[in-house]
Structure formats: C-alpha cells, structure tokens
C-alpha cells in the first residue's frame, strides 16, 4: 500500500509573542556566553572599537579644522599696493578713507620708506638697493577685515571694490593659507572616507573570524541541535546575536575613545586658539559620525556574523 493522500503538513510555531520571547532569551544568553569569556570578548570589542574610533575621530578632527578655517578672525588680510606717484600724505588719506568702511576692522599704513627699511632688514639685498637712485617699493595699506566677513568670495568682492580707487594699483587678498587648509581638509576628508571603508571591511573580517571560530568550537553542539530538529534559523540566531553584541560593545568603546580624545584635546586646542585670539573650541561634535558609530558598529557586527554563519553552518551536518 502506497499512501496516496497528501502528505500531512508540519506544525510550525508562528506565535509572534513566543517568537519575540525566544529572541529576547537568545540575545541575553548570547550576551551571557560572551561574558563567560571576558578577555577574548574585550579584546575583540577593543579592536572593533579602535577600528570604528579611528575614522570617526579623524572625521571629527577634519570637521573641526574646517570650522576653524571658516571662523578664525584674522584669517585673511588684504594688502593694498598704492601707485608709485602717491605721496605719503595721500597714502594716509587713503588709509583713513578705507578705515571708515564697515567691513574693515583695522588698517595699517606702511609708507615707502618703512617698506624699504623692512625690505632691507628682511631680504638682505640692502646693498643692491643702494645702487638704485630712488625707492622702488610702493606704499602699502594693510587691512584686517571684520571677523564677520566669511569665505573667499567676500574677500574677493572687497578687493574688487578697493581696486576701483585711483590711488590703489593692486588689492591682494592673502587667502593662501586658508585655501591651502581647505585643500588639505578636502584631501583628508577623502582619505578618512577610504580609511573608514577599509576599517569597516576589517571589522567585518574580525567579527566573521570570531564567529567562525565560535562555530568551530560548537561544532558538536550544532550537529546535535540539527539532529533533534533545530531549524537553520534557530541555529543561526545565537551566532548572529553574538556578532551584534560584539558590534555594540565595539561601538561603545569607540564612542568612549572619541569622546575621551576630544576631551583631552580640548584644553590644548583652546590654549592654541587663545594665542590666535580665537574662541575656537573642539567641542563641535558631529552627530552624524557619532550616530554612524552607534549604528554602524552593531550593523557591521551583524553582517560579519551573517557572512561567517552563511559560509560555515551549512557545512555542519549530523552523521
């Protein structure tokens, strides 16, 4: 007799409450398992923590430096080179006129003889100058713009306006170091991004390898669970939770590292900023990079565990 009625369906437990309960139990027991080998857990979490802290810390630093280049007053100065025909009195008159402008904080006139003296002192070409009958250097008005003035564009506009003066031959914005800093921070940004991607890959591998070893250690147990009817999902679950917990612990360590580094750097940075009459402080914490660490860590842990589980669990079959 061959049974020809349809095969009876298997009973499956689909009660969402028991499902949730089982997940809660499983996540706790995974945490418990990790706490039973505290040293290896702490080491794995520390490696993950450092890998997460490095790019986010650097990102914060770059962000802050960019901020600094935007807000530091005295960032830029504008030099006005006056025409050769302009007398010292006329030059002083120009300086007074410019000092009235609302976007100018401070002015200083370096007249032609002062310019010559300074050039002599700084260049070492004094004797060469003696050969000339007249002073070849123009008078210069140095401008320190109002600190509210921000960005290279604003300076360029100011220089353009000043260029319109008949007495002024050349208005030059000394933005060089600001621009350089901008270029450097952009380069660093890119480098930090690449570093972040590489380290995320490293975290995946670290967690994947940790879980792989764990699967090997529990080889016999997995076989027996399969033997008594444990589903793949059931067997996967504790390993996924372990990966997740590794990520959570790593993220915590990373946050502690970054915040500690900020705290320790803040004092010296404020002293440094003080030297430049700036009230800049490192307390600018970018919420996105912190959120990135807080969520990225657990997510990477889970993904790493998933990779290991996918590769290694199917190979274990009871005999």
């Amino acid at each position, binding site marked *: 007799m061959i049974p020809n009625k349809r095969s009876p369906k298997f009973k499956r437990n689909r009660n969402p409450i028991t499902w949730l309960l089982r997940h809660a139990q499983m996540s706790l027991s995974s945490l418990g398992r990790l706490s039973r080998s505290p040293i290896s857990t702490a080491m794995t979490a520390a490696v993950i923590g450092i890998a997460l802290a490095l790019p986010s810390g650097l990102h914060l630093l770059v962000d802050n430096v960019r901020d600094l280049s935007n807000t530091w007053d005295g960032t830029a100065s504008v030099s006005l080179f006056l025409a050769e025909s302009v007398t010292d009195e006329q030059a002083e008159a120009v300086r007074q006129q410019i000092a009235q402008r609302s976007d100018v904080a401070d002015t200083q006139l370096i007249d032609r003889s002062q310019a010559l003296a300074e050039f002599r002192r700084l260049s070492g070409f004094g004797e060469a100058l003696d050969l000339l009958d007249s002073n070849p250097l123009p008078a210069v008005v140095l401008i320190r713009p109002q600190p509210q003035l921000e960005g290279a564009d604003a300076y360029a506009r100011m220089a353009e306006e000043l260029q319109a003066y008949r007495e002024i031959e050349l208005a030059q914005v000394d933005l060089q170091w600001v621009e350089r800093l901008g270029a450097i921070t952009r380069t660093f940004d890119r480098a930090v991004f690449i570093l972040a991607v590489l380290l995320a890959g490293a975290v995946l591998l670290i967690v994947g390898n940790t879980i792989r070893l764990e699967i090997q250690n529990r080889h016999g147990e997995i*076989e027996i669970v399969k033997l*008594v009817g444990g589903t793949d999902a059931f067997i996967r679950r504790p390993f996924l939770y372990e990966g997740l917990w590794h990520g959570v612990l790593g993220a915590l360590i990373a946050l502690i590292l970054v915040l500690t580094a900020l705290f320790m750097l803040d004092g010296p940075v404020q002293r440094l900023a003080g030297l430049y009459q700036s009230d800049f402080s490192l307390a600018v914490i970018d919420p996105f990079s912190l959120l990135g660490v807080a969520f990225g860590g657990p997510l990477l842990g889970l993904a790493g565990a998933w990779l290991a589980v996918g590769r290694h669990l199917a190979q274990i079959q009871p005999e």
Partner: protein
Amino acid sequence: MIRFDNVAKRYPNGHEGLAGVDLSLHEGEMAFLTGHSGAGKSTLLKLIGLLERATRGQVWVNERNLNKLKTRDIPYHRREVGMIFQDHRLLHDRTVFDNIALPLVVAGMGHAETKRRVRAALDKVGLLKKEKVFPITLSGGEQQRVGIARALVSKPPVLLADEPTGNLDPELSREIMELFLQFNQVGVTLLIATHDVDLIQSFDKRIINLRHGRVADDCAGDPV
C-alpha cells in the same frame, strides 16, 4: 508508518550503503535490524531520519515521501523521529535536564510544559534524581538512558536506535531493551539496529536481517 520501495544508497565515495531494500513497518510495530558489520543497518536508519538521502527508490515515513521533502522541512521531520545512538551524542557542558529538554527548546515549547515533559521522560528512564548532574558523571548505561529520554521527550511517533546497547554489559542491555518494549506498548513505532542476536531472540519481535545492503531474512516474532 515506515516504508522502503526498492531503496538504494550509494555514498559519494562509491560505497554502497544499501543495494535495494523493500520493507514496511506498520504503526506501532517494533522490529530489530540485524546484520554483519557494514550490512547497511546504520544507512537504513539514517535514511529514515534524513541524515542521508536515498539515491534510488522511495522512502515513506509518517505518510510523507522523504524524497520530496524539502531541505528546509528536514528539521520538522526530525522532530517526529526520535534517534538514539551508540555513542549517546550528549552535550557534555549541559546538565541532564538541559540535554533532554533540547528537542523541546528547538521546537519552541514553553518553560512550564518543558519542565513537565522532561521530568516525565526522566521518570520513564528511571533517572529522576539525576536531572541536575552533568552527563560525564553518569555511567554508560545511565548516559544511554539520557539519550533515550531525549529521543522520547517530544513524543515522536517513531523511535530509531542504532546499536543502543553496543557498549553495555548484557544485564544493562536487557534493561534498555525492556525500556523499548515499554515504549512500544504505548504505541511508539520502533526500529532498533543491533548485532546482539542472542538478546533480541528472547523478545519475540520481528527481526529484519540485512546482508550486503539487502534484506536477507525478515521473520515476524511469534506471539507466544
């Protein structure tokens, strides 16, 4: 309940586990499986528990064609087939209670019901006082009882045992076999592989003899 139609099993390395077996066990039947070493006893049991798949023919268990069973359904199938091994296959870092509870835990049974069932299973195998100890502290016979309790705790309709008394002295072996007889009396279908011919002949149950992967003898036990 269990049915083999011209079943053969060839292992990937070319070894022939079974060469062509026709066999059927009805519900509530108890049978012994004997044969020389390498005759295919273990292979036959593995096909029933889906530890291996047949390479030819059809295997039916609990009215399901195992050939057509999807891989993801195998765990659910195994919950209906209790398996007992010569080497017990216990988890040595868990207590006797936790070992026996495992099939219920993987099936998602509640705590109270699990406790009740594990106690009942322990009672059946006579190990009620040992639930908190670790298997390593038990004798071979006691460990085998733990394995048996684990196999029957989820009340599967089919129990398979592969040389369950292989490591035990004759007296303990007889006790274990008598335990199986008790289960059979409450309606469990049992198939027990053993080479202890002297012992099983005293039980008056069906004996299926395998030779080189085929059924050589199949004698029903005579009711006394």
